[in-house]
């Protein structure tokens, strides 16, 4: 439980500082170009890693299960520009059905 509160505190404080970086600490200055290009890649990189673990992550192994057809269906929906919420529903329904039938 204590660990959870440490997590909440540390993530909270760092996020406040990141969001305040421009308006409070840096004034009108820009980030150095090389820092900027690394920072720009953090979101796509971390989100992709999360897609992977959320799809095939298991307890210390890669697990290929009913999540695969659901995520595939959801990915097609995202690709076809279906908004986020319906795309999530499609993924959930396909996976739930696959689990039910298995």
């Amino acid at each position, binding site marked *: *439980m204590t660990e*959870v509160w*440490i*997590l*909440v505190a*540390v*993530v*909270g404080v*760092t*996020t406040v500082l*990141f*969001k*305040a*970086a*421009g*308006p*409070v600490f*840096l004034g009108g*200055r*820009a*980030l150095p170009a*090389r820092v900027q290009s*690394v*920072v*720009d*890649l*953090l*979101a*796509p*990189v*971390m*989100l*992709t*890693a*999360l*897609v992977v*673990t*959320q799809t*095939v*992550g298991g*307890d*210390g*192994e*890669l697990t290929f299960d*009913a*999540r695969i057809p*659901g*995520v595939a269906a959801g990915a097609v929906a*995202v690709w076809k520009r279906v908004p*986020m*919420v319906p*795309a*999530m*529903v499609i*993924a*959930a329904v*396909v*996976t*739930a059905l696959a*689990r039910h039938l298995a």
Partner: protein
Amino acid sequence: MVTPEARPAPRVRDGVRAAIPLAPGPFVFGLSFGVLAEAAGVGAVAAVVMSATTFAGAAQFAAVSVLDAGGTALAAIMAAVFLNARYAAISVSVASIFPGGRFRRLAESQLIVDESWALSGRSGRFEWPILVGAGLLLYVLWVGSTALGTVVGGALEDPNALGLDAAFAVLFLALAVPYLRGRRALQAAALAAVITLALTPIAPGGVPIVAAAAACLLGLRR
């Protein structure tokens, strides 16, 4: 005399109105965060406090899903901090629109989230009232839906029977898509996927995600 291209300066309430069409996304996102936080054993109070103090959906979701996967608090913190580092760049881009003294700017800068930032720049230059109005509506939605989600999550026997794990994967995918423009972002994302796949069978939970952050160093290449 009003020039043809002049338009009235936006107000905070215009920002609130601009964010209304987006409302279902953050609402369901917050609801999902509450459900996942319950499933991961974070607890309702900590989940709501986190939404109120961090107010950054993807990072909160990342942290809790690392915990849910058996990762340590340290891995969860690192995943969230890496994800939120982008707010340093985002906040720099709108630094000049915040009026007032340090404390006011500190408080109002917390309303910067991806959606409020994107809306505030729609007219071609960043507008403070739009960012603050949209940010306020999204904040209320986010904290409220998190609270609701913890109630729903507490009542669910097994969220994964409903396919929520797959829905969360698609949520991350939908969040990633706008960032996957250009060859460099695609290469970095592909490398991150390879690192995650390679480390999942051999590293403890959460570590593959944190290690995947190294892929952003591709940004150092010229």
